[in-house]
Each structure stands twice: as structure tokens, then as C-alpha cells.
């Protein structure tokens, strides 16, 4: 094969790969922590079980991703060190994931917008040049399909439900929509990862997310909110005030009792 037949891709740096996998792992970890806090507070037994199961899936995905990030970094940090011994500014999760659970409509809207992003991202990552990342994505994708059916199903029931549920879902959309820009707007790192064949093409994710979310909103009889200026960049470590409070609770035990085990 002549060298021109296959354009040489510049290999990604260790720092880039580490940062990129952290974004995915942290977004799942923080979403899992938010959903886990709802255990015992779901509106009905089935929803309580569903939210807990989704939290567990996301925690498992976060564990696989953060373990991979630790191996890429190569400085001896495992998934526990990354989850429990970093401060808010070092987390790379999308700011949408750290938004409070609010009422059930807020929880569902947050999950729905994130699930759509995760589904499309993993679908693309299943073909990633990074084989380990591709394997995690292909496994996670199967779980995410169930998550999307749950959150999109509830979006329709709430949006096309009673006047009260419709009003609350509209309010939740208005409140959370501004955080979706971060999911879909590629920064320099996203672009570099796409170029080297590890990350998905950002334009493709945006297009598929828009299609998926627009169809769900239409079925739920909900208006798409207007675009808003977005001042947060969770994936670059600039978070809303909510993340610090979440971490204070999530990290208390291993910080207060270093090395503790069951």
C-alpha cells in the first residue's frame, strides 16, 4: 500500500487522551451520583427502581472509563483516586450532569438531554481508533438505549400529560436548555480527538442529537427553548456552584478515612 493510500493520523498525546476520557467518565460519575441520591424518593416504586438501576449502569460505565483514564495517564491513579481525590476544578463533566435533581420533571429533562448525547456519542465511539474506549462504548451503548427509552418515555408522559406536568416540564426545559450548548459545541480538544479518529465528529453528534431530541419534544408537545448564552465549561473545569456540594457528600468517606475498605 502506498503511503498516500491511507492518510497518516497524528497520534493523540497522552494529555489529550486522558482529558477526553475524563470528560466521558466524569459526566457518567456525576450523573450517577445525582440519580443515586434519589433512591427511596422516586414518585413510584417502578420509577425508584429504574432511577437506581440507571445510576448503577452509569456508575459502572464511569468506573470503566476512569480506570482507562488512569491507565492512560500512567501515574498510578486508579478509578477511586480519580473519583474521590480530585477537587471540583479538576472534574471534566458536562455542567448539565451536576444540575440538581429538582422535581421529577427536572430530573427527567436533565436525563433525557444527557441520555440523547450519551447515546449518540457512544454509538460513534464504538468505532473509535482507541480499541479499549470502543469496547467500553459498545457495552455502554446497550445500557444507554434502555436509559433513553425511560427518559424519553417520561418526557412524553409529562409533556403531554396534565396541565401541571406540562407546565413543570416546560419550566425544567427553560432552566436546563442553556446547558445543552456544551454537549454539542466542540472545543479544541474535541476537534483534535475527532481528527485522530478517537472521538466522534462533533457536527455528526450535534445533528443526530438535534434529530433525536426534536422528535421527542414534538411527541411530548413541548416547545424547543430559545438558544441562550452559555458561560459554563464543565468539560474544561469551570463548573456551576452545585458540583462542590455534590463532591462534598460523594467524597466525604474516603477523604475522612483514607484507604478505608468494606
Amino acid at each position: 500500500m502506498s503511503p498516500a493510500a491511507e492518510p497518516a493520523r497524528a497520534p493523540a498525546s497522552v494529555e489529550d487522551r486522558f482529558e477526553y476520557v475524563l470528560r466521558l467518565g466524569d459526566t457518567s460519575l456525576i450523573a450517577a451520583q445525582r440519580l443515586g441520591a434519589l433512591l427511596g424518593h422516586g414518585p413510584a416504586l417502578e420509577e425508584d427502581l429504574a432511577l437506581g438501576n440507571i445510576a448503577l449502569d452509569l456508575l459502572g460505565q464511569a468506573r470503566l472509563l476512569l480506570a482507562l483514564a488512569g491507565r492512560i495517564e500512567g501515574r498510578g491513579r486508579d478509578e477511586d483516586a480519580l473519583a474521590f481525590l480530585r477537587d471540583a476544578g479538576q472534574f471534566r463533566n458536562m455542567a448539565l450532569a451536576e444540575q440538581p435533581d429538582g422535581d421529577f420533571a427536572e430530573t427527567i429533562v436533565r436525563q433525557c438531554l444527557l441520555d440523547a448525547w450519551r447515546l449518540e456519542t457512544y454509538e460513534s465511539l464504538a468505532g473509535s481508533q482507541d480499541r479499549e474506549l470502543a469496547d467500553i462504548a459498545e457495552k455502554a451503548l446497550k445500557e444507554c438505549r434502555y436509559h433513553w427509552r425511560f427518559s424519553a418515555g417520561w418526557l412524553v408522559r409529562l409533556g403531554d400529560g396534565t396541565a401541571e406536568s406540562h407546565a413543570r416540564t416546560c419550566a425544567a426545559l427553560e432552566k436546563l436548555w442553556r446547558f445543552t450548548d456544551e454537549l454539542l459545541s466542540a472545543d479544541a480538544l474535541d476537534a483534535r480527538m475527532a481528527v485522530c479518529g478517537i472521538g466522534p465528529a462533533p457536527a455528526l453528534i450535534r445533528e443526530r442529537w438535534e434529530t433525536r431530541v426534536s422528535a421527542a419534544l414534538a411527541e411530548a408537545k413541548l416547545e424547543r427553548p430559545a438558544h441562550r448564552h452559555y458561560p459554563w465549561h464543565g468539560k474544561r473545569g469551570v463548573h456551576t456552584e452545585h458540583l462542590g456540594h455534590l463532591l462534598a457528600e460523594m467524597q466525604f468517606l474516603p477523604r475522612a478515612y483514607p484507604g478505608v475498605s468494606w
Partner: protein
Amino acid sequence: MVSEPVQGAAGASREQRVWQTLESVMDPEIPVLSVVELGVVRQVRTAADGRLRVGITPTYSGCPASEVIARSIRTALDQDGFTDVTLETLLWPPWSSEWVSETGRHKLEAFGIAVERRTPGNIVCPRCVSAHIERVSEFGSTPCKAHYRCLECLEPFDTFKCL
């Protein structure tokens, strides 16, 4: 269980004897089903360094039973004298209920759990075998199960999701 050699295993290869040991390791949540029947043991091989490698896969990414299963496998192999074993996690191809063996499927049904396969409309009530059923929730008591109800005998039942 005593740690004596598996009967009739004299002529069997080391890998075959490991498989026999693994067939005695039960799923912690469903004690009628072995980890082999569940389809989480992917391979047993001897590596270039002469050590045994046992490849296992999680059912769901966050399944808490995965760690228990790995420990149970390690203990059972130790007891049967296989001390030079490395456990490795294989994520690909991802697990689905299609990996549950036919024997495993019958055992699950006898235990009261239906098994969903890829072909749609194949779930029947594990008690009265009626196909007249309804789904209560895609999320059940563990990540791998959905919650159904039989409209004939009116009993609720768990179903192993296809994934």
C-alpha cells in the same frame, strides 16, 4: 465442597478441568445458575508463560455481582488446585441474554425468571407458559431484569433483559 480432583478428569486437559470447576461456581443472585451457563466465562487458555488465563465479562457495566463472581471463581479454582490463574476482564463482545445457554435458560425458567431473546414476542410466563403478558417496567430488582406480569395467572415475574 471438598477439594478433590474432579471425577473422570484424569485424561482431560487442564483447561477442560478448569471449565469443570467453573461449572460449580454459581451466580450469587441466582444460585441455580452457574457462571458458565450465565455466559460470563468467555475463555480459558494457557498463556505463553504457562499460566492459566480465565476471561470473564460483566453482564451490566455496574453489576455488583461481578466482583462476587470474580472472587467465587478465584476461590473455587484455588480449592481445586489451580493457583496459577490470572483473571482478565473481556468487554467485547458485550454480554446479552443470548449468552445464557439453553440449559441455563431452562434453569432460569424453572426458578421463575423468563429469558428474553432477540426475536420479539418470545417472553412467556415462567409459571403458566402463557404468552398473554404485559411489561410493568423495563427496570426490575437488578440491572439485568425487567418486571412483567402474566395476564392469565396474574402473577408478577422477572425477565432477563436481552440487553
